[in-house]
């Protein structure tokens, strides 16, 4: 009877909720991006994209996501399969691996800056091991690669757990029988991973990837702590417009550009990892 309406009933609460607390304010903010004081125009977009730092921030944001997300995906998959195969102590290991989930990006920035700053832990360690006589500045404008590596490491440390949890839950749902059958046919672990785990994990994989990619485009606090003024990203541009230049419409324009990139990558990921209808494994 209600089969036709049931899905709409089920999505109603979330729609009402997001409509009220996301779409309503979003509409108010987004329309300012297309308004230049006199009428509708794209002037704000021209303004923000012609700013000399925009191409740099754009490139930095994309590069960071392109490097960090695949590494996180690989790492999370590795960790998830390891946890799954574990017999003893697996809840302790899983707990340890999910710890970064509880750490905010601001706190992560504080921790990693303490490692990479001139008189920080990394230099202390190298000093103790006799590699260096005195601490030299690691994070500096002469060392753009190291800045990138430091930010990437901090992001990988902080945000891999979010993918791990999704993947572990997903792997837990794959029936053991498939693996048992595979073993009967003599498939090795690598083959099992490729033929069973990966295909059956597709829904979880796409969820994890999409969320991670979207959040990667919004990276800010860690980058600001480690990269200082040397590594502008799109989000730092947004905040600079909003809170330093008090130019809300320009801030909204940059934010909409980020939204645009997010939409594009979401569509690509969902296409690539689409679960075919009626497909059998």
């Amino acid at each position, binding site marked *: 009877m209600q089969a036709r309406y049931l899905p709409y009933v089920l999505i109603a609460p979330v729609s009402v909720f997001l409509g009220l607390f996301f779409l309503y304010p979003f509409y108010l903010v987004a329309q300012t991006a297309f308004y230049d004081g006199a009428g509708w125009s794209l002037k704000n977009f021209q303004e923000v994209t012609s700013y000399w730092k925009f191409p740099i921030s754009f490139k930095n944001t994309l590069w960071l996501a392109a490097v960090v997300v695949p590494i996180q995906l690989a790492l999370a998959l590795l960790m998830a399969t390891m946890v799954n195969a574990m017999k003893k102590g697996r809840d302790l290991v899983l707990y340890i691996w999910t710890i970064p989930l509880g750490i905010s990006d601001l706190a992560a920035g504080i921790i990693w800056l303490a490692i990479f700053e001139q008189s920080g832990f990394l230099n202390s360690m190298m000093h103790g091991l006799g590699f260096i006589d005195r601490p030299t500045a690691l994070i*500096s404008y002469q060392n753009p690669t190291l800045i990138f590596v430091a930010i990437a490491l901090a992001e990988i440390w902080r945000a891999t757990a979010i993918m791990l949890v999704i993947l572990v839950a997903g792997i837990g749902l794959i029936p053991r029988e498939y693996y048992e059958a595979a073993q009967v046919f003599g498939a090795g672990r690598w083959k099992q991973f490729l033929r069973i785990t990966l295909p059956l994990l597709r829904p979880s994989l796409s969820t994890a990837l999409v969320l991670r990619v979207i959040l990667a485009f919004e990276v800010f606090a860690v980058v600001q702590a480690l990269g200082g003024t040397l590594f502008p990203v799109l989000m730092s541009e947004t905040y600079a417009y909003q809170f330093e230049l008090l130019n809300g419409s320009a801030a909204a324009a940059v934010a909409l550009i980020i939204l645009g990139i997010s939409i594009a990558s979401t569509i690509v990921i969902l296409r690539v990892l689409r679960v075919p209808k009626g497909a059998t494994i």
Partner: protein
Amino acid sequence: MKLKVKLTSAVSAIALSLTAVAVQADVLFWSTQAKPVEEAQAMRDQVLSGADMAVDYQPNDGGPWLTRLNAELQASSGSIGVLGALHGDFSAMDDADLVDLGSMGVASASATFNELAKLGTGDMQYIPWMQASYIMAASKEALPYLPEGADIDALTYDQLIAWAGNIKEATGEAKFGFPAGPKGLKHRFFQGYLYPSYTNGVVRTFASDEAVTAWEKMRELWAVTNPASTNFSFLQEQLLNGDAWIAFDHTSRLAGAFNERPDDFVAFPAPAGPTGRGFMPVIAGVAIPRTAPDMEASKAVVAHMLKPETQLATLRATNFFPVVDVELPGDLPPAVQAAGGAVAKMSGSADANPGLLPAGLGAKGGDFNRVFVDSFERIVLAGQDIRTVLDDQKGKLAAIMNETSAPCWAPDAPSEGACPVE
């Protein structure tokens, strides 16, 4: 069944929140100043505990501070009683949103500050609350490397560069620290120190030949500056951990070093250039938004902040100096003594060339700062040609001045109408 759970939880939550609203009574002091946890605690314990009414002191980052304030103004109903912020924050606000405090009968001892507080209107938009400045500080380890014949209390930019150069040569490390981090106050160095010292102006002389020289000096200085400075925003940290031996920063951002290890550091005036020793004050003010829930209580808090004993307590808590006439006692914290001495020497020096805070820029204050910061990033960090960059940025600066029609401020010569970029 699910719906039931949802309902009950929602109802209990609403009930819970209603009880929370009912107890609200304190005057909310919404501030961008005295943010570090120690200073915030001192504000509550030592400064505001002496007020007649309960005051809830809440320091915030600029973002939340502004967002909340604007939301209350838009909703025409609010809980913020008193605003504490810098001159620049207030000048960016709509003058109708701040209550005229002229009739309160309190003001600072400085006529200049009181004039600035009118923000170009006829009304007292805010009351000057406390002041500070930017000074230099050095670790005593750096003193042996002072160039010959240099007087630390009367340094020139060339001597500063030579000094930092000596240290770099001797230790192999660049030990000058400059607040070029994301929250660093580097733009004030260019606006209030470098430009006045080399060009005797800020706006008029922005792209002059003297300005080219100034930026060349900046490059020389940067060559002996700790390259990690792009992460430095509070130089007290780098002084304490030894990453910087000489530093330029806001007095309250150097205070931690002096208070923690008073015997290890010295404070001294900013250097001088061909057109004198440029320096700039920092003024924080208190104001009342038109949406304040209890106007009388808010005014009482403002009056309390201007009392001599409160001003002294504020000095101890935040390292910002009083704006009213008050005798400074002898037992002040080391940071206050050090900073006070350096500021006095700076303003009393024969070649002093004091600048004023930008006035009349309104909401364009951030864009104005960006002109200088962008010039720095392009010239010094990216190594672009000075003349090209200045000519390019000049157009942006002129546009800001024309749009706001802000008149010139010292050390620029006064102007009729908008300050011209020559």
